[in-house]
């Protein structure tokens, strides 16, 4: 049987020369397109290194992040302290590794939370439309219209700034853009012919949402998520500036940068702010580049 099939396939291949001999899986197309974007590839590699070193912090770090060595305050980078020390003589390299854990954890988890809220709200609004849509979108408008700095300050005050609460807070504040995006995608996808085809088959609504619409809306959702991770990391830094970020002595890139935003430090130890700043920049940059790459790679239009 396989022989017959092969024969037919030969002919098919000849008649349809654009058919490749091996089937293209979505993953492979994804990688082909993604790897075309050099910045995205570089971004992924750098981000991978950053994530791995954060994950492996306890094994890589030469010191403990809370180890204070008051005799070695604000030392410049040296053999002993690769990236120098902070105001308590703590090793900056170590704190960066651990800080990455917190910053990335907060970034990822908040965005995951924001996605859960945003996708649910957006999907319901976009798929069902009408009055449900109107009400949900007004809610989104309301949350968007209140200045985020005010929301951050007051909500942090209410919940107290622990890591878990910060994640909750960022999720509560940043779901709106996802909701709008998902709604838009749903609005346009629900009239697409393959969705209509599924309806004529008699497929139920929830199945259409999860099996047909959502997978096709994933591209923009993931892209916006990558951008959101960067902005959450920056928001955490801003909160730290207001003294409401991650609680010391637990390091985060944001509170390290805030700690370094000090006249004395900036005059006498300019390398200190440089490193957390660089990592925030790199991470945000990587996420943005990856987002760009994902946009192209996940766009169903470009698959076709």
């Amino acid at each position, binding site marked *: 049987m396989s022989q017959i099939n092969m024969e037919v396939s030969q002919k098919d291949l000849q008649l349809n020369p654009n058919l490749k001999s091996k089937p293209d899986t979505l993953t492979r197309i994804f990688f082909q397109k993604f790897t075309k974007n050099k910045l995205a590839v570089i971004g992924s590699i750098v981000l991978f290194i950053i994530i791995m070193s954060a994950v492996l912090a306890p094994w890589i770090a030469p010191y403990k992040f809370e180890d204070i060595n008051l005799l070695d305050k604000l030392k410049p980078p040296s053999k002993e302290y690769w990236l120098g020390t902070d105001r308590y003589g703590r090793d900056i390299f170590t704190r960066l590794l651990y800080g990455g854990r917190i910053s990335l954890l907060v970034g990822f988890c908040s965005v995951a939370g924001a996605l859960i809220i945003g996708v649910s709200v957006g999907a319901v609004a976009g798929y069902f439309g009408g009055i449900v849509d109107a009400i949900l979108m007004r809610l989104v408008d309301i949350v968007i*219209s209140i200045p985020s700095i005010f929301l951050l300050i007051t909500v942090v005050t209410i919940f107290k700034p622990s890591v878990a609460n910060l994640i909750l807070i960022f999720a509560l504040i940043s779901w709106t853009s996802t909701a709008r995006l998902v709604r838009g995608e749903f609005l346009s996808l629900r009239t697409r012919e393959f969705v209509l085809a599924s309806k004529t088959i008699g497929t139920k609504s929830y199945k259409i949402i999860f099996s047909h619409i959502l997978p096709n809306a994933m591209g923009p959702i993931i892209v916006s998520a990558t951008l959101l991770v960067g902005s959450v990391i920056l928001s955490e830094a801003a909160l730290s500036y207001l003294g409401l970020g991650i609680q010391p002595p637990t390091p985060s890139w944001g509170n390290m940068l805030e700690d370094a935003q000090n006249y004395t430090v900036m005059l006498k130890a300019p390398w200190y702010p440089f490193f957390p700043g660089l990592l925030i*920049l790199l991470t945000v940059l990587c996420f943005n580049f990856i987002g760009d790459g994902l946009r192209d790679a996940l766009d169903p239009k470009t698959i076709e």
Partner: protein
Amino acid sequence: MVSYIFRRTLMAIPLLLGITILSFAIIKAAPGGPVAMLMDPKMKASDREKFEEKYGLNDPVYVQYFKWLGNMAKGDFGESLIKRGTPVSELILNRLPNTLLLMTVSFLLAVLIAIPIGIYSAMRPYSPLDYTFTVGSFLGVATPNFWFGLILIMFFSVTLGWFPTGGVATLNAPFSLWDRIHHLILPALVLATADLAALTRYTRSSMLDVLKQDYIRTAKSKGFKEKKVVIKHGIRNGMIPIITLFGLMLPSFIGGAAITEKVFAWPGLGQLFIDSAFQRDYPVIMALTVISAVFVVIGNLLADILYAIFDPRIEY
């Protein structure tokens, strides 16, 4: 058009109500109150109660809200609880011009830099300069304001002495336009860098889209040179999606500059917002959220009007 604006304004009322309810609920849920600021070892609880009673802070929250709403409907934002006796409207009006000036200038700065860059990037995508602009604009977005601001002050103001360290104008000097501009440059620059990236990216992708359109091909087939094609046929079409972004940026007009304002001692509404939130100066906070919401409404309206101006297909 007029009826459209009227309708939109009416439709904004539920939005405004929603915003005030949510803000009121949040700020009341935050522990502490304005009197906490007035802590004094000699102060007695009874004194505090008197104060709270006077300002109705012991009423149930919904009563406070409706009282506030009633006054606001009459155009009365009340008086500050911290700067007692100062009408909230006065506090805000004092600072509104500063905020508007800073935000408008930084916004224009961002627009003036971002749009040409975005257009260039779209015309020569994936060129070395395009990559440079991309990395450069993200650099701006990934640098926290508070840190960038201080760096600029230390370098340009303290070390080089090129710019003032902060404030809106030189103390005790007569008004001079140059002096005001001089004070504006650094904070506007800090704020603009944050918006720059988003604007550049949007312009780029929007222009990329436009340049693929059929009418661009038509314009080329008319024999126009690339520059003329892009300028005359591309830009106006490319700006249409950017207007949405303008609309989205407007909510940040009030609160968005808070940190930059603080670093540059710029007496704007953002700082007032943060201070009031920390001090639980409820009337000020509520007035600012209302103003911010009004800004959003006006911003969206303005965006709609701009849409109509840029895009003749849209009629109201």
